[in-house]
């Protein structure tokens, strides 16, 4: 049994439209951030000419990975810009010469012709990171001597509104299946499983059309309960096993669809990760749709380009409606962590006194007791035993609360408190 709650979908508004591409920007502001890490070494200086795909920064430490320029042009400056984490981050400003020049053309007709080492090196060189929001370098997942028996492709997108993986899988199904099979072969993985939601019949049909030739790829339909897209829940549902930190402990690797597509481009063209698909959606957008966005593009520009907002009193959210973060401004630059920009109108949900209904306790997927954590927030000893650090910030407790209390915030606070005070 996996725990979760059925929550609204709100996906239809952005699902119908084809994927748009935006590359008319005069400047890109490539944020020097990878995952949450802003400790990046810059490798270019003002006045340098860069190709599309040239390395402009390197992440240090255990999760070494490169950051690449997403256009060709001249580095003109450094500037602090807001990114989706709600903070200002130092960015490399590049003026677009609209040539999309790349240093060296490359094409590989058979993407299965990689040794495991070359595969890992390619992912690393191309700066491929998980595109689900964590920014975790993908090569690390495969860089192991342990036997990987299952590759799970997470195409679930359990957060409402977001359809990026859905439309990508719909429109690039052939390439994605090819890539999955290649990864499977290169890494000697026994089977690959694509997980989609059980009501996605359109997607199922499309995949069924192509999957026939890939005997070792299986399609699995998962129930539509939130947060089924959370790796632990997904692995538990599909494989009926629990793991403690990462799925690799049990010989499993999980990747989402966007990441697989990025791997495809890396294997096929040696194309570094310089763009990604982002869902622009929300009741307050005139034409919600998915857009391929170059790293470092201003969200505001794209929103204008796709028709703008309806109501001036707009609220901008990075990420989905459950896990996402409210942005201080629409003038943020998009990077690899962003799968969705949600634009809604501000609505006041008045919090009232807790009625002790216990719903927040019952719904928590990691079995926390949010309201009891709140009651004991001052009591360090008890608080420790209540393990707030396990919270995955899924937001279900706040979602479900009939008193409209933002109880997740309290759990987050408790989490920080435990981290700080040990």
């Amino acid at each position, binding site marked *: 049994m996996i725990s979760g709650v059925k929550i609204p979908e709100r996906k239809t508004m952005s699902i119908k439209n084809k994927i748009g591409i935006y590359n008319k920007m005069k400047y890109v502001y490539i944020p020097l951030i990878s995952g949450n890490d802003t400790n990046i070494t810059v490798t270019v200086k003002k006045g340098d000419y860069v190709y599309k795909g040239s390395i402009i920064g390197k992440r240090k430490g255990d999760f070494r990975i490169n950051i690449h320029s997403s256009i060709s042009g001249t580095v003109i400056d450094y500037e602090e810009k807001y990114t989706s984490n709600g903070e200002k981050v130092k960015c490399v400003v590049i003026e677009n010469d609209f040539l999309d020049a790349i240093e060296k053309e490359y094409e590989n007709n058979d993407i299965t012709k990689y040794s495991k080492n070359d595969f890992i090196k390619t992912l690393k060189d191309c700066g491929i990171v998980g595109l689900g929001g964590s920014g975790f370098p993908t090569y690390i997942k495969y860089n192991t001597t342990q036997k990987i028996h299952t590759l799970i492709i997470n195409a679930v997108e359990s957060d409402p509104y977001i359809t990026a993986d859905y439309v990508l899988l719909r429109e690039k199904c052939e390439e994605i299946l090819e890539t999955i099979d290649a990864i499977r072969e290169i890494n000697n993985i026994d089977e690959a499983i694509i997980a989609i939601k059980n009501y996605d019949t359109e997607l199922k049909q499309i995949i069924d059309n192509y999957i026939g030739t890939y005997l070792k790829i299986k399609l699995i339909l998962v129930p539509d309960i939130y947060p089924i897209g959370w790796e632990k829940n997904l692995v538990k549902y599909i494989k009926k096993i629990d793991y403690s930190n990462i799925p690799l402990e049990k010989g499993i690797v999980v990747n989402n669809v966007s990441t697989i597509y990025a791997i495809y481009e890396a294997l096929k063209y040696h194309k570094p990760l310089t763009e990604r698909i982002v869902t622009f959606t929300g009741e307050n957008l005139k034409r919600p749709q998915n857009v391929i966005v170059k790293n470092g593009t201003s969200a505001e520009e794209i929103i204008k380009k796709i028709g703008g907002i309806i109501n001036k009193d707009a609220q901008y959210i990075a990420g989905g409606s459950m896990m996402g973060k409210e942005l201080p401004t629409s003038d943020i630059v998009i990077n690899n962590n962003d799968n969705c920009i949600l634009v809604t109108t501000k609505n006041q949900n008045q919090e009232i006194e807790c009625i002790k209904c216990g719903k927040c306790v019952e719904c928590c997927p990691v079995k926390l*007791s949010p309201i009891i954590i709140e009651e004991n927030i001052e009591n360090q000893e008890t608080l420790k035993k209540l393990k707030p650090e396990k919270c995955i910030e899924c937001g279900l407790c706040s979602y479900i609360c*009939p008193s409209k209390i933002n109880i997740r915030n309290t759990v987050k606070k408790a989490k920080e408190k435990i981290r700080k005070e040990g």
Partner: protein
Amino acid sequence: MGPFIKSNTNVKKMIMHTINALIPIIIFSFIKNGIIPYTKGYTNLTGLFYPIIFILIPTISVIIYEILYNIIFQKQTNISNIKNNYNIITGILIGLMLPINTPIILLVLAPLISIIINKLIQKIFKNTIINPALIGTLLVLVIYPIIMGNISYLNKYEIATSPEPNYINTTGTYETMVKPYGGLLNFFIGTIPGTIGETSVFLCIISFIYLTYFKVIKWKIPITYILTVFAITYVIGGTNIWYPILQILSCGLIFKAIFITTDPKTSPLTPIGQILYGLFLGILTIIFKYIIPLEQGIIISILIMNLLVKTLDKIGSLARFDFKKSLIPFIIAWIMILGLSIGIPLKYNQETPTINETTTT
């Protein structure tokens, strides 16, 4: 701060669902205590509507007191807040849990005192600890016999047709315990004497299904509570299945199990806490029936358990990570259940050997 979508349940809806669930019960009590006595010619027009008026008095009193409290002490003039106040159900529940002959003055005073006590507790402990509807009801049931002699549960029609209900119905035979009221089916439908709203077990169960379907109540509590009482009285009653059935159908147990023990603010939040709560409620109810017989044993059991909610939740929240943490209270509960099931028949067989030697006819 997110999440940016919220479920469509809210406190107002939960209160409305609870009121909806009570409406059939109110209508039933109107038929039983108003319409039937009227059509049989036992009462006049005021008597016809008396049950409705009776339930309205504490209901309206509570609403007025809450509004006054808000205005005077909270300096809130926006009385629309009252819609989110779970206490407004308190009045209806008090009305439904009292005998029809309760003096009107008590109907007005009991809610007032229970609200005052409740607010004081809230001030001191920063929490609602004791169920206000229960304080009110218990108050009335204690004062009533003092000023009026004995409590009479019979409406005008039942005075002529039925004996007083037996609130400590532990010993007797089918003939003495069930027959005078018609049969077990009457206990189920609710055409037996008792408090105004508690007699119809059938309607209570319908309400329970409704409230559980709409996820309004903590359904684990009534289920474990009722099952515990049933299991123990089943053993006590020997092989006579009518005996445990009678025990759970009478004394307003099911009504209180569904509407009172599940009151959100005074019941545990954690699933394991709720199950323990139900188990110990059952155990206490049995104790106050057989060992220390009290007419208001159920109410007192719930009040005692109210005091333990915090403790049970503490156990319950830790046991979510590791079930072993709740082993000790469960073991205590099982031992007590076993002890009561075995001990009580022994005690009664020495004193009154009539407990279960009968057969249904």
